[in-house]
């Protein structure tokens, strides 16, 4: 049980570290809940309008916007920056 928890927790942390918030504009209704909940005031909603991932280095990848979006617009997607370097 503990091992399972540990594995899922470490997977989650890896996702947060390596991921960038990526919108699916076809689901967004511009309600602004994502922007409202961003602790560093990134206008995530504008990213959802333009379809551009949040690539700003200030993004904490805390996941608040992803979790609070009531319509499943946002998800973490692996970014080039966070990928392990090739030898």
């Amino acid at each position, binding site marked *: 049980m503990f091992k399972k928890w540990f594995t899922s927790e470490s997977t989650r942390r890896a996702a947060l570290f390596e991921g960038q918030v990526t919108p*699916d504009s076809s689901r*967004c209704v511009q*309600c*602004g*809940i994502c922007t409202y909940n961003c602790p560093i005031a990134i206008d995530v909603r504008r990213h959802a309008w333009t379809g551009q991932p949040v690539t700003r280095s200030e993004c904490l990848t805390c996941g608040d916007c992803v979790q609070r979006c009531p319509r499943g617009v946002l998800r973490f997607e692996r970014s080039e920056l966070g990928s392990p370097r090739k030898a």
Partner: protein
Amino acid sequence: MTRHLLIGSGVAAVAAAETIRKMDEQAVIELIAQDPAGYYSRPGLAYVLSGEVNEKMLFPFSADDFRRLGVRLHSARATRILPAQKMVELDGGSTRLAYDRLLIATGARAIRLNVPGADLEGVFKLDTMEDARRLIRAARPGRSAVVTGGGITALELAEGLAARQMNVHYVLRGERYWPGVLEESESRIVENHLQRMGIRLHHKQEVAEVLANRGKVGGVRLKSGEQIPCDLLAFAIGIEPQAELAREAGIQCDRGILVDAQMQTNLPGIYAAGDVAQVYDETTGQYVLDSLWPEAREQGRMAGRSMAGKAGAYHKTIPINVTRLAGLTTTIIGRVGKGHDADLLQIARGDSETWRQMPDTLMAQTGFEVNHLRLVLGADHILGALVMGDQRLSSPLQKIISRPVDIRPIRARLLEPGAPIADILADFWNELQTSSPTEG
């Protein structure tokens, strides 16, 4: 220099303005904002009512954004379209604006409740920003509210008022919630959750009269004769396209304004998009109404493209909405329901007529009180899906249905009694991703 005039300030008009500007830097773009609040997220009104977000957040564009886009805003009502002169009359004739291309994106409005007393102070709808403000001012903790109607908006009203600590009664004409879209078991899941929130349901009932107390709402009398004392009544019995301007100008209308694949009406140079437009659905061969934000945006984009003189054609996509029903996140995709809904006179907001066009075919479903999944299966493809609770399959199913993906490799397994359809689908999706990862 082409003069583009857009009537309406919803997402269809804003998307058209953006698209025109991308294609023509010199064009004159004027937008008539008929709603005094301008451009805001109408679906977001529910989240303001529930207290999840504040009102200020619902405005995606600032005045600067419109300036940067080079859009001139007029806060006025368009009262007449004069196609022969290519003019639009504002506020009953005080001003006229000339156009070369005109977009009608006037949206839809709530159908009024037609019972004695419905004009009393304390009767509300949730159709505009002003409606939301008035309702929030009236929603006092510990007081009682009656909600009547169907679809997503009626639930948003019931849940929103419950979140504001009101004692909520939900009066339904039918035997269950949203029978045109949901299966009976799904309606029951929603109703059980509503009851757990403390909302009292009154099935097979109808508000016959709004009762006054010192000139304001004091209660309602139901058809059965039962009376419910309350401080406010909120209704959501459907919406209707605001097509009067177009009808009076001789533009061809059915329930909404009929448009072709370029979003043009029968009058050259006049276009329509969004909730007011009735568009051709290739999958069903019918002209249908939707009230969905992404569809309205896409239609606005196509209208803008056509107005700027660029080629293109709007192909109606499979309608999808992700919404919350009694706190349960629910994705509705494609053709999932059929049948009559006594609580709605037409579609509601966040709704699509296509969802009600489920063919006589096989269904596979699984799930319990919280996580529920239902698939409507055609011979080769999935035609519709409803995902309630766990949303991990929501996005894959949107793609499987929209593309559409040939599901014959898993169809027989999906139809086996007691089949673990979520697992079968997840494995199928993972295999698809592995074989063609770029299509994800």
